[in-house]
């Protein structure tokens, strides 16, 4: 497990518009990084194959696949996740029923994990951290 921390010397005030990127090098590498990633699992209770999404962007899940070992390896993340971990210590994660962060959502607190509820289990389409950007 790699452990990372971000170091920023200046106030974070610059805002800009970025379109939703379908992939990024730090996401989907199969490693859950502290203070960086959310990890989605194919099975409940963090079982089966997993895939990591970082905090650089909001992500549509259709662009990612579960990474083995375990059940679900090779399947698309969209509509196939049952549980999720938030590896950040002070940043909330939101998982959405629809792509592009639309519709109902489930919140995952910092340094916590949840089984997705009946609305979102196997119905996950996108996710974003409360605070995004790299």
């Amino acid at each position, binding site marked *: 497990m790699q*452990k990372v921390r971000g170091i920023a010397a200046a106030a974070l005030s610059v805002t800009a518009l970025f*379109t939703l990127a379908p992939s990024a090098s730090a996401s989907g590498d199969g490693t859950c990084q502290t203070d960086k990633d959310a990890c989605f699992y194919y099975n409940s209770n963090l079982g089966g194959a997993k895939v990591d999404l970082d905090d650089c962007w909001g992500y549509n899940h259709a662009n990612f696949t579960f990474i083995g070992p375990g059940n679900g390896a090779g399947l698309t993340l969209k509509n196939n996740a049952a549980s999720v971990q938030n590896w950040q210590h*002070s940043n*909330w994660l939101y998982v959405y029923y629809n792509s592009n*962060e639309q519709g109902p959502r489930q919140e995952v607190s910092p340094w916590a994990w949840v089984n997705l509820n009946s609305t979102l289990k196997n119905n996950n389409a996108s996710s974003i951290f409360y605070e995004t950007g790299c």
Partner: protein
Amino acid sequence: MFNEFELYKISTLLRKYSLTCMKDQGYTSINFPTPSSPGVTKHNERRYGITDGLLASRLGYRIPSIKKGSTSSTNTTTLSADEEFTLTGGSTKPGELGKGGRNKFNKKVPAGGCSGVALKKIGYFPGDTPGNPTKVQALDKESFAGSLKSDRVKRSLEKWSLCMRDNGYTYAPEPFSASNDHRFATRWVTKLEKDVATADTRCKQSSHLLTIWSAEETKIQRSLITEHQKELYGIQKQRDTTLSIIERRSESSS
């Protein structure tokens, strides 16, 4: 429920107290990035789908993002094992409470580590998960699902669908049928996606979909609040306590 601005304050305090604790534990040069303040986008603003016509014409259905830490001095460094231990108290994964112990400076790290210390400062226990309770999130979904069964919402969706057809786009009278169009699963936004998203926002206006939908959902929410009054009262009390602590702590740190 905590809104985006309240979560920002919680996040800011958690980082501040974690950092103070890390310094007390011997890591005097460590730093954590300051959270970026909310403002450009609220992550729940698309509860009923896209509504901003200007954004739709520029980005289609894609989400604008706030860039943080954009200065050249921003970088990413690996936490050492002992820094990680001091921060978490030895927790190796989310949801696991670290037992604590002594770090390399022979300082006593409490259970939950510096993250736990930060949580205690804002009224939680180490290992707690600050944020919106499961019950509130469940009711939030219940009202959303219930609103879609409303005849008024269904009629508005029919009008929206007809409007989209008049604009040359055929989509079922379902809330996200246009944005879920598989043709939009492209790396970059296309002209078609921008045109459809723009028409979507206009048709939402002409069909009064948002006004009707939010009114119907509000009715359901009020009914649910009455039905679950006792549980929600307890949650409200906890929320008020947390907000009171946060306000006090935020003022004293500014």
